[in-house]
């Protein structure tokens, strides 16, 4: 039997985030390269300064659909040919819009990189946007929306965003658009969006993997150097909160086997100076398996398979949200326990042991996060998107270790607003309603239509 004592750690080996270099192509395309020669693999990302927050009003989902449409064919070949040529090289180009940018990416064996990058360049600089392809993409997106709305998790996430952000805030609508806005997007909208937002000045290419810097620059210059165009960034209010008092919304899902719960409110922007304090605080509250909320809801009570908290980092204030799914009968209990953990987090400094659990984890896990070319490229992309300093990844670990219990308490008090918590429950209203009402959390408004309509309540006097 193993009665040997728990071993102590030996001295850690040094680790540095991969070295990278910044360059610029002749037409202004930014270029960041991190040569990593572990396996013959390369990841390339193009980061374009146009995300969901650039969508015009009423056309929510335009950035996302434009990204999709990039792969549907270029001046030289149609979408099918493009897919087949890339796939014969063992790769494919993926494209998608995030809130703050569009990212076009590809991971390929280095022996095929040159050939594949030529196709990648075509996708970026000469998409065709044929009406028949746009029509198909639009229908596919609408089918996807039907799926999301019949799926408790997707429905809960969407309902939560809609509930916490004021109407008209871009963040209140799904990144990929709502049913109505997607239906209204035309080929012309996509073409215009591309003309307005894509272009050399708005684009940074990130390369990580088995490549040589000078050779790569030459290849990029010959593939993208001719690209012309100007972009016109458009930013607007995106993160206004809907209300400052507590409120609960129930979304009816008849016979649901569980209640999907979202608790939180509008969070903070990525560049907030309290970022590291918030990250450590969140790890303790609900970010780790051994977090307070998970140990309480899952391990102490068995209410759920898992419970976690999360700050969604965007250029503007993304959601702070606690997510879980619980057995319907204990929905109110789960909310009550969560509130207890939030109060505890805000009322006293965490013990050193709990602080170091979070900081040691974030510090130690750092090298594990960047094992792959895709992960390294994505870290560099975040540096671009959030305008982080070049030494950000080199100083990350010391900044984590510098967070104190006092910082954690300050972050909880300042950035978790117990009096403004919003709750969204997707579930079987017949089972959960009474208990929710007796919680005393806040008013719960009249009944909802099943499935996709929801009941919304505010702190107004109607109850």
């Amino acid at each position, binding site marked *: 039997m*193993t009665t040997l004592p728990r071993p102590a750690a030996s*001295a850690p080996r040094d680790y540095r985030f991969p070295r990278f270099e910044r360059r610029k192509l002749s037409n202004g395309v930014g270029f960041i390269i991190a040569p990593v020669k572990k396996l013959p693999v390369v990841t390339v990302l193009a980061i374009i300064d146009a995300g969901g927050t650039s969508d015009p009003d009423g056309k929510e989902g335009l950035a996302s659909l434009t990204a999709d449409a990039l792969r549907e064919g270029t001046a030289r070949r149609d979408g099918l040919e493009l897919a087949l040529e890339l*796939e014969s090289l*063992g790769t494919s180009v993926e494209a998608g819009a995030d809130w703050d940018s569009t990212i076009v990416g590809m991971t390929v064996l280095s022996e095929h990189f040159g050939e594949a990058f030529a196709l990648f360049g075509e996708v970026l600089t000469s998409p065709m946007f044929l009406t028949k392809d746009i029509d198909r993409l639009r229908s596919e997106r609408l089918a996807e929306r*039907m799926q999301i709305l019949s799926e408790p998790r997707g429905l809960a996430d969407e309902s939560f965003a809609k509930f916490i952000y004021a109407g008209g805030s871009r963040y209140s609508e799904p990144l990929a658009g709502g049913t109505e806005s997607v239906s209204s997007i035309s080929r012309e909208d996509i073409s215009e969006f591309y003309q307005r937002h894509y272009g050399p000045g708005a684009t940074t290419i990130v390369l990580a993997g088995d490549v040589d810097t000078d050779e790569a620059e030459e290849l990029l210059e010959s593939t993208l150097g001719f690209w012309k165009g100007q972009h016109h960034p458009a930013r607007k209010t995106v993160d206004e909160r809907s209300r400052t008092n507590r409120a609960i919304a129930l979304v009816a899902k008849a*016979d649901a086997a569980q209640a999907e719960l979202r608790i939180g409110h509008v969070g903070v922007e990525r560049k907030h100076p309290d970022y590291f304090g918030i990250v450590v605080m969140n790890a303790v509250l609900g970010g780790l398996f051994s977090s307070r909320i998970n140990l309480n809801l899952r391990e102490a009570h068995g209410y759920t398979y898992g419970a976690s908290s999360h700050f969604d980092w965007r250029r503007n204030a993304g959601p702070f949200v606690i997510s879980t799914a619980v057995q319907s009968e204990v929905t109110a209990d789960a909310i009550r326990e969560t509130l207890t953990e939030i109060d505890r987090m805000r009322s006293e400094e965490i013990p050193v042991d709990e602080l170091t659990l979070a900081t040691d984890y974030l510090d130690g896990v750092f090298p*594990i996060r960047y094992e792959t070319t895709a992960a390294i490229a994505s870290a560099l992309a975040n540096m671009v998107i959030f305008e982080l300093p070049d030494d950000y990844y080199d100083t990350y670990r010391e900044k984590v270790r510098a967070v104190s219990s006092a910082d954690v308490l300050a972050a909880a008090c300042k950035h978790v607003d117990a009096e403004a918590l919003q709750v969204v429950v997707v579930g079987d209203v017949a089972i959960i309603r009474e208990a929710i009402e007796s919680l005393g959390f806040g008013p719960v408004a009249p009944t909802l*239509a099943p499935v996709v309509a929801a009941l919304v309540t505010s702190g107004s006097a109607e109850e």
Partner: protein
Amino acid sequence: MRIPIEKFRLDNGLLVTLSEDRTAPIVAVNLWYHVGSANEKPGRTGFAHLFEHMLFQGSENVGANEHFELIQRAGGTLNGSTWLERTNYFETVPSNQLALALWLEADRMGALLPAMTQKKLDTQRDVVMNERRWSVDNQPYGTWWEKLPTLAFPESHPFHHSLIGSMEDLSEASLTDIEQFFATYYTPDNAVLSIAGDFEPVDARELVIRYFGSIPRGKGKPALPPMDLPPTFGNSPRLVVEDDVSLPRMYLAFRSAAFGSDEYYAASVCGAVLGMRRGSRLYRSLVRERQVAADVSAFTFDLSKGSDLLIVDVTARPETTPDQLEAEVGREIDALFSDGVTSREIQRAIALIQTDMITAMQSASERADRLSMFATYFEQPELVNEQAAKYGSVTVDRVNEFIRSRLGRENRAVLLYIPKANADADAGTNGNLIGAAAP
């Protein structure tokens, strides 16, 4: 690309594989126990998976959930998973914490039972029931994981029953079951330990012997019932499920060659020809051209004994009826059956599979997991390095042979999900998500 592999066996039967890679100061530890849902007794379905949860509930020198805490405190990631044929536990840690990871795994392999209590079992049973509600019952199409095997394997076959288990069986699980299950299956001679990443092989070997060497061998495990099946179903099993879904979806399963066999590689390439990415047959035809499907995919279950399944998964577009969906997919399979594949299709499929494989091998955790897999199923971790060549040698003829023997009409099990006829007829408007934001 070849990774270095060392293997050795301890006196107690534990098979150990090592693969050194010094590019980053991290190391992955991965333990496969050769037990999965296939080993469960009737009336005790879901037990292998419930047991996986119990292994995080502490052992002689480790408190409940302390395994998680210690690894995360060390800057590591970890988890476990259960499949039909195996259960695995894995952690990736900074390389100076290798001893900790090994000590934790050894403590629960060697001394789990002293820490077991009824209360822990009760709580984890609740957690697992919630996992079932979350991943199966409350998910559109979530029951496919258990309905398709039910359709594709005979009732007495070890792969027939639910992996996550029924609520009734989970309720019945007792502490005595736990003790028996542990003594039968969680023994060094029924396990493979793999270590990949930054370590000194001599040191790693010494640590493994120190922590695992004294754990006694098991008393042997009961043999599985015969698992071989005829190459085809011989008919077309079919199940239609009315469910709370918005779009029809069809799962089409073919009885296929066991994982690791020569025919398996042809099956896997055939799956990629059919449903891997946008250039695949079904994507081109059903999504792009005919526009009857919103999405397609095809994959194998990778079962190493008896008989595997090749599965095609197609979701309808809103205007496509279930009948149409079934007919269109059937037509494509019939065309493949009569005409076979082209060399360009094979080349595309192999290129994609090989890139994915090499890309995945960047991760120490993946390397360790694959070493454990080949060591567990075939006692040959070296097979990791043979995979690219095995795929590379798949030819048009081999795939066409597979198609002729497996994709005929006598070998198609159909599981069809259709939206509930009267689903929420009183719902009023559709798509009106939170109609009014708060006043």
